[in-house]
């Protein structure tokens, strides 16, 4: 795999960083990353990873853009209200970097589709907003042996970590063995 002259221009500020360099940028280009959710976390994630030159970005979301999303889900714009979030974020990412591939999955993640979906990627990033999906993603990442980058927020607080139990680290269940009572979960 090589970078085109156009790509060398585009990623010049990475290529001159010794910590990234040509070897790092080629790893970015070869990488296939799956984002769970195109919302508050998925928007900046998709935009930054796309701009940085990740070769293939997958995005799963079944929701459509609502005007109450716009205050934080910055991949979506006024004209996108009512449009599937995956289509809206794909357009935004490609507008910033048409050199990469964006594969969208306009579907609800479930037991029936998750394993096949994860198998097509190297790394999974969970930006979902409910506990059912958190546990589903954690378990599926374990069974498919994919490292899982975990991000979550509540009001003004955020948590971020990497779960990679096959490399000796913990998984989400090591941290939270069971979910909180359903009535306590904020929407």
């Amino acid at each position, binding site marked *: 795999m090589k970078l085109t002259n156009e790509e060398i221009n585009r990623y010049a500020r990475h290529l001159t960083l010794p910590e990234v360099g040509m070897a790092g940028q080629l790893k970015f280009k070869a990488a296939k990353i799956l984002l769970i959710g195109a919302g508050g976390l998925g928007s900046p994630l998709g935009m930054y990873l796309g701009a940085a030159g990740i070769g293939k970005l997958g995005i799963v979301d079944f929701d459509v853009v609502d005007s109450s999303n716009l205050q934080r889900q910055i991949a979506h714009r006024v004209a996108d209200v009512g449009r599937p979030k995956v289509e809206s974020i794909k357009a935004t990412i490609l507008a910033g970097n048409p050199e990469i591939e964006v594969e969208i999955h306009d579907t609800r993640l479930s037991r029936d589709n998750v394993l096949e979906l994860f198998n097509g990627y190297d790394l999974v990033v969970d930006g979902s907003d409910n506990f059912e999906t958190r*546990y589903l993603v954690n378990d599926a990442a374990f069974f498919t042996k994919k490292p899982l980058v975990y991000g979550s927020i509540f009001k003004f607080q955020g948590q971020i970590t990497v779960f990679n139990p096959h490399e000796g680290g913990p998984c989400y269940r090591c941290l939270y063995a069971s979910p909180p*009572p359903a009535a306590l979960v904020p929407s």
Partner: protein
Amino acid sequence: MLFDSLKMTFRDVKIQKDPDCELCGEHPTVTELIDYEAFCDIPMPSYEKEDIDEAAFSMDVQELEEILKSGKEVVLVDVRDPNEWDICHIDGAKLMPVGEFDKYIPELNPEDEILLYCYKGVRSMNALKKLHAEGFTKLKSVTGGIDRWAEIVDTSMPRY
């Protein structure tokens, strides 16, 4: 890593692998994907578990509109948070946030007919159960809450 944007603090916490983890521990019990909706449907341990006939203690927003129009003496209680109250509320309601509901119970009279509402109807039913456990009986929770009210009764009210 934990981030608190009000205090502007970042904190690193070391997470250990749990040898008893049901998925990645030494003796896993979760060996394939499970039913995650059932797994996450954990009931409340406290008073909210109290078994009452919720339907018998519910009213819809049209019934509420009729009662308020009729001029009948009722106590209308809004159990949402103050910042939600500031966005919109129903005229004549009293604000008694469910988070500190105990504090407000002495202000209520069991002789009165008490109608409770929140955003969607979940918190008001929880508050109702609390009052029921305290011996109140003339209670109704508004199904669908103020969001339903704004949708079909007072369409000029903002929705959030």
